[in-house]
């Protein structure tokens, strides 16, 4: 019931916002998303107390087609739900000093998206998962279309068709598995059993179809071409959700739907995907280095980090999976942090071209300091959350595939190159005529940045509680695979 409430609350919030009109949309959205976060924390305490069954919700939906409304949560789902419900109030709060046209519709769409994202994290029925997966696409499409920047028509179009293209392959794979289940059911356990009984090649094909859908959404090279332009065209709240949470739907999907479903296929062909992910890391990092625009840089940096997560998932061991979940958490927080920093700069300077900026530290040192911590976390410095994730990931990948791990390790070095370079160009150096009038941070901005930085440091210094949430679930998952 609690799990159902986690989906319904943002859905209802969305409709409330649509009905209330523009005036206090921000405040209402913030309160509602905070309630949702509270609810998620309550679910966490339920999970910790061991009452896993009470998080299960299973009623038949379309019985003659074997589709049930089956929701459930284990540690992995829990972490993702926490991430999305934690980021949403932060994203809403980050947009507090901005006024959007039809703000109530914008926040309503955000809430609807929250509902779909949480739904995809807790769905334990293949069909239901697919529905939530697809539904989450519609609000973000309209957010970018209606509030986006230049070229938004073309960009949203590409984004939508691209993601839908991948999803349809997943749909075919799901139908194929469904037809192979014992009594035609979409239930996750039935699908697992069906997938595991398939011959090796078919398992590989199923893995490929799922991976295509997820790889486009994450995105991984060479399916990433929609991403930079979409990130650039999207309004800040939209891109925060897109990069912070939506990309995790895909990585979560790999852990939940691919690894346990076709384990032999992953064992046999997983190295291909690890290879692709490593290529993705290096490729995106190299491109990030030559970017002139900060927003593009964040977009490519995001691809690089996601590539590492994807490689870690397919390495399939305790460390790599723990690392990938940890990295999903920190990537979500850091992406929101980076985009928020971008937003602060862009609102003031009306440009995010790095060569035009410089010396902001001299004008607003508080911003430079907080921004620096976010940057450090992105290059995985110890005592930041990025370090925990990347360290575990590299350790895990190393155990499975030494070559891949040594190339993936480049991500940290290259990350340092592009991130520090960006910091240096924008924050250090001579203050020029443009940045001379860099207005001071407002209170709301300062608070948002502080929250992000605190999260980064706390998670980096004391990651144990987060690792504990997922530990037993990953063990169960790995046992099921062997």
């Amino acid at each position: 019931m609690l799990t159902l409430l986690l989906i319904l609350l943002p859905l209802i919030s969305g409709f409330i916002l649509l009905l209330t009109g523009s005036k206090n949309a921000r405040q209402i959205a913030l309160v509602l998303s905070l309630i949702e976060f509270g609810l998620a924390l309550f679910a966490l305490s339920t999970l910790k107390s061991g009452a896993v069954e009470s998080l299960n919700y299973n009623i038949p939906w379309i019985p003659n087609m074997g589709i049930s409304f089956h929701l459930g949560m284990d540690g992995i789902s829990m972490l993702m739900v926490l991430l999305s419900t934690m980021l949403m109030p932060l994203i809403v709060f980050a947009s507090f000093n901005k006024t959007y046209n039809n703000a109530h519709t914008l926040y309503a769409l955000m809430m609807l998206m929250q509902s779909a994202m949480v739904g995809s994290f807790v769905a334990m029925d293949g069909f239901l998962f697919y529905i939530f997966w697809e539904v989450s696409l519609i609000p973000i499409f309209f957010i970018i279309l209606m509030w986006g920047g230049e070229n938004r028509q073309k960009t949203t179009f590409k984004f939508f068709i691209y993601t839908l293209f991948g999803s349809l392959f997943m749909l075919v794979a799901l139908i194929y598995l469904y037809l192979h289940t014992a009594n035609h059911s979409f239930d996750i356990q039935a699908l697992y059993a069906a997938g595991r009984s398939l011959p090796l090649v078919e398992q590989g094909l199923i893995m490929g179809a799922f991976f295509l859908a997820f790889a486009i959404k994450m995105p991984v090279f060479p399916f990433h071409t929609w991403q930079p332009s979409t990130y650039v065209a999207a309004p800040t709240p939209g891109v925060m959700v897109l990069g912070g949470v939506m990309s995790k739907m895909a990585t979560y999907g790999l852990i939940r739907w691919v690894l346990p479903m076709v384990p032999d296929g992953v064992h046999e062909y997983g190295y291909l995907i690890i290879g692709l992910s490593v290529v993705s890391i290096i490729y995106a990092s190299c491109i990030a280095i030559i970017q002139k625009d900060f927003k593009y840089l964040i977009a490519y940096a995001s691809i690089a980090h996601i590539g590492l997560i994807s490689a870690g998932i397919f390495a399939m061991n305790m460390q790599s999976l723990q690392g990938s979940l940890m990295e999903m958490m920190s990537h979500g927080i850091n992406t929101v942090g980076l985009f928020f920093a971008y937003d602060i700069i862009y609102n003031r300077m009306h440009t995010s071209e790095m060569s035009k900026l410089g010396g902001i530290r001299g004008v607003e040192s508080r911003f430079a300091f907080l921004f620096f911590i976010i940057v450090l976390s992105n290059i995985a410095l110890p005592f930041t959350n990025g370090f925990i994730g990347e360290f575990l990931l590299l350790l895990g990948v190393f155990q499975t595939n030494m070559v891949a791990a040594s190339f993936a390790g480049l991500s940290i070095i290259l990350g340092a190159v592009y991130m520090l370079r960006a910091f240096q160009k924008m924050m250090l150096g001579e203050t020029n005529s443009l940045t001379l009038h860099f207005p001071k941070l407002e209170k709301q901005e300062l608070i948002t940045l502080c929250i992000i930085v605190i999260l980064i440091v706390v998670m980096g210094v004391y990651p144990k509680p987060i690792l504990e949430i997922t530990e037993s679930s990953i063990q169960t998952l790995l046992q099921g695979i062997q």
Partner: protein
Amino acid sequence: MKELIILSALGVLSLIAGLLKIKRPFMVVVIAGLLLNISVCVMDWNHNENLYNMMTLDNFALAFTIVSSSLAILWFIVANAYFQNSNTFSDHYALVLFSMTGGLLMVSFTNMVMLFLGIEVLSIPLFVLAGSHKTSMRSNEAAFKYFLLGAFASAFLLFGIALLYGSTGHFDNAGISAFLGANKLSGMALAGIVLMLGAMTFKVSAAPFHFWAPDVYQGSPTMITTFMATFVKTVAFAGFYRLFFLTFMPVRSEYALLFAVIAAVTMLVSNLIASAQSNVKRLLAYSSISHAGFMVITLLCMNNSSAGILLYYTLVYSISSIIAFSIFKWVKTHSAENEEISAFKGLLSRSPFLAVVMTFALLSMSGIPPLSGFMAKYMVFTAAIDNGFMWVAICGIAGSLMAVYYYFKIIIAMFAEVHESSEIKVPANLRFVLIVCSIALLALMLFPSQISSLI
């Protein structure tokens, strides 16, 4: 029997009403009559009433009659203006109602003669209705084209029936089916089957006999196009399905591949051409053709559950079509008769209600959850894969993707582009139908099996 009487009596009544010059209240009579028809169908459920071995009102026939009559009611409410502005309103009423009578024959026949009669009674009023914009060249062209090609198709159908009769000695479907099951399939019978297949393909506007549809859909008055895309499509498919289910099941394997090719080609070609259209009416016509391709898959995978899938698909498609066409019509009249996609520019600011409902319809047609169009396509794909036609499903998916391209052109025009134009007011009847249809689109997604396991 009662259903047949109600529909034809309504048609005759409307002619009398024309004589007595009763204009306005007559819509109420028609809708009441159709509601009566639906309730009679509900009462006859499971009775399997057999009429002189010519037609049987089994659950299949009743379900399709209920669905098509409901669609007709919605259509009549939307098309109110079409009847109001015409001096010859009673003829139009009568023609539509007679056409509906033909539809009833088509969903309930058990004899080839009734099938032929049904198709003719359905089509001939349509030829007239397509040309009912008497002063418009395009409308005349549509009527003429439709009539000429329709006559050809009828001839094919008749010739097919004759060949079948020649080789099996039966006119009734059960007799032919029994004969085909007991004997080896002769070349003559196969030729008959293929001819009938061609004729029915024409009627449901599936490839390769779809060429008439864009011109006719574009030229006819928009409300008649709506009627063709919803009611006519539904009953034509029901007739098509019934013909092959009742008659040719024993020799299914002989022509299955033909259906697969028809489905695949229809889904690919029509969507490809549709993506190049800028005229919305023509675009919707091609979209209608492409949906025919999806529906053909249910004929390809004929088994006990496929009729339900067809029922669901036609219902969902028709509901979205009613929305799309009626909004198109309303937007067109408020944009200086502009039929291009540009007429939809900035619809969000002109009328948010219309923009949102239109988005519902287009999302449903492109098969994106949470709208029921997704469920319809899902069922069809599952049936195809289950029957070993993975490649047809893949073609369908490719077609769906192309479809997203052109549907989203309209959505993007509505939402992103700003257009300096006046606000659009939505009349009460249109608003009512649009709300009912939108709710239906969402509700059908939540409760699909209520429809799909009906028959």
